[in-house]
């Protein structure tokens, strides 16, 4: 047996294990992953895929019906709807992912610290969590956007300020269980500092649950971002955004219904994709 084989062995095995785990995916999960991957590809390569500039107006050709030149027709300013849909995925996905990611990081950190140290920190964090859970998020978001001003950075900040609560609650409850485990006690007895124990021994045990919550949170965030755009208080026109596009098309429902129908369907399909993935992950963990 050569040394090369010894080195290659584990790597091959690892790769096989990875393939096996994909094979174990349910059909629902595979469809979900396929859908979400399509969206990510479109978002990344939008400038290459889109046939037109999403902002270029062509007034003589406004409100055109779908044709080979314009697959989904043109809007009230003659902009190509299909190109706008593709570009919108960049804004919606980026905002939803970054806004919820900030919530995730902030919530996980506060939940981790509160659950690990207990005491005063825990009391303060838990009380704030209980409080914020009683406020309906939507008017709070509007109030935040009111003081921060509309636009992408404000939307992300507003999401982080309101969204960390559910992550903190989840992280805290998981940490309360994990910190009592023997391996945590062993790590502490081994002389590791609190920060290291939290990062290396507690955090890895609560990430899976946090990520499942994140997947469903992204669905909600996209819906909310689109709603804010639709209401004219989030992303501002002429930026292509799905909610803004639904609003743009609303005056032409009887003649050009696809203007409002298409962006909504895009959101719904993405929502289904993400739901299938998180269902698949939860189901697999239960098994």
């Amino acid at each position, binding site marked *: 047996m050569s040394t090369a084989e010894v080195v290659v062995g584990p790597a091959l095995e690892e790769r096989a294990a990875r393939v096996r785990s994909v094979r174990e995916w349910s059909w629902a999960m595979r469809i979900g992953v396929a859908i979400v991957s399509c969206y990510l590809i479109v978002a990344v390569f939008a400038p290459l895929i889109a046939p037109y500039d999403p902002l270029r107006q062509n007034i003589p050709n406004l409100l055109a019906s779908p044709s080979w030149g314009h697959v989904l027709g043109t809007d009230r300013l003659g902009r190509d709807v299909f190109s706008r849909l593709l570009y919108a995925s960049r804004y919606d996905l980026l905002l939803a992912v970054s806004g919820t990611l900030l919530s995730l990081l902030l919530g996980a950190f506060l939940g981790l610290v509160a659950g690990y140290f207990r005491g005063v920190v825990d009391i303060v964090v838990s009380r704030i969590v209980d409080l914020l859970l*009683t406020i309906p998020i939507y008017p709070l978001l509007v109030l935040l956007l009111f003081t921060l001003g509309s636009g992408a950075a404000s939307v992300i900040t507003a999401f982080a300020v309101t969204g960390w609560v559910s992550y903190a609650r989840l992280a805290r409850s998981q940490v309360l269980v994990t910190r009592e485990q023997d391996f945590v006690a062993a790590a502490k007895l081994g002389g590791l500092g609190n920060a290291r124990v939290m990062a290396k021994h507690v955090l890895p045990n609560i990430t899976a649950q946090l990520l499942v919550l994140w997947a469903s949170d992204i669905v909600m965030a996209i819906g909310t971002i689109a709603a804010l755009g639709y209401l004219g208080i989030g992303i501002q026109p002429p930026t292509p955004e799905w909610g803004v596009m639904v609003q743009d098309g609303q005056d032409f429902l009887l003649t050009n219904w696809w203007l409002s129908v298409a962006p909504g369907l895009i959101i719904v399909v993405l929502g289904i994709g993400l739901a299938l993935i998180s269902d698949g992950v939860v189901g697999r963990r239960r098994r």
Partner: protein
Amino acid sequence: MRWRFLGRRLGQAVITLWGLTVVVFLMFQALPGNAAAAMFGARTSQADIKRVNHELGLDKPLWTQYWHYLTHLLRGDLGTSITYNRPAREVIFDALPTTVELAAYAVVLTAIVTVVLATVAAMQRDKPIDHLIRSVPVAGLGLPTFWIGTMLLFVFALKFQLFPAGGVQPGFTGLISSMFLPACALAILFTAILVRSLRSSLLEVLDSDHVLTARSKGVHGVRLVLRHVLPNAAIPTITLVGLIFAGLLGGALIVESVFALPGLGSLLINGFHAHDFALVQGITMISAVGILLVNILIDVLYSILDPRVGLS
């Protein structure tokens, strides 16, 4: 015993409300941005901002500001709405009934559809119809309410003209028909959230001893479901309703704008565009109070459905 339980819950609610004022107040102190600048838009001179800050008392120490805010709030003073030139409280209370009616309508529709779907699914367990009903949440959770609202408006109000296309018609029948589509938009979303939970608790109760006893006495069909199964299976779902009610209210506020219903949601958006700080802040506060009241109501309902609650 039950009264003491409710008294304690009320006490907790008062403390929560107080905490809420602190958190909302501090949150806005901590954030960049400025109410005065927001009220006048970007092209405001420093002198104007200073003047408004002084008028709003924003140049005073933090504690003075909070005390001012809290004492006015306690007197029911939410400030003056600059768009309507009236106390914000009056404007908000004028719009409140529309939102309450919409939310109540949506809850009733959701309850009916959820109970019917969950019961059918549980009784026909693992048959095709059960699988169909169980797949509802996958499609439903991603549905944005504003878009469902727009689609319902398009199909049933504009295309087939079965319902009014916006606003509220006079009279009770006018109200019922004007609010049917917006309430449906909300009910679709919340049925999707609740149906799985009710189905699984129905299945649990169907397997329990007391249902077996009832069955052995010859109770079956609708009577069995209504008398013996639903009351017990409903308890976890009612808790869930309490948890999602904040979301339902938020959805109602959004759907109002789609259907141009003159409620808090439309007021909130108008206030936003008109830079009306008192209105936007007041509506946030009133919604939070509404959520607290509903949660207390749910606790009452809970203690009626399950007499063990409150005894412990």
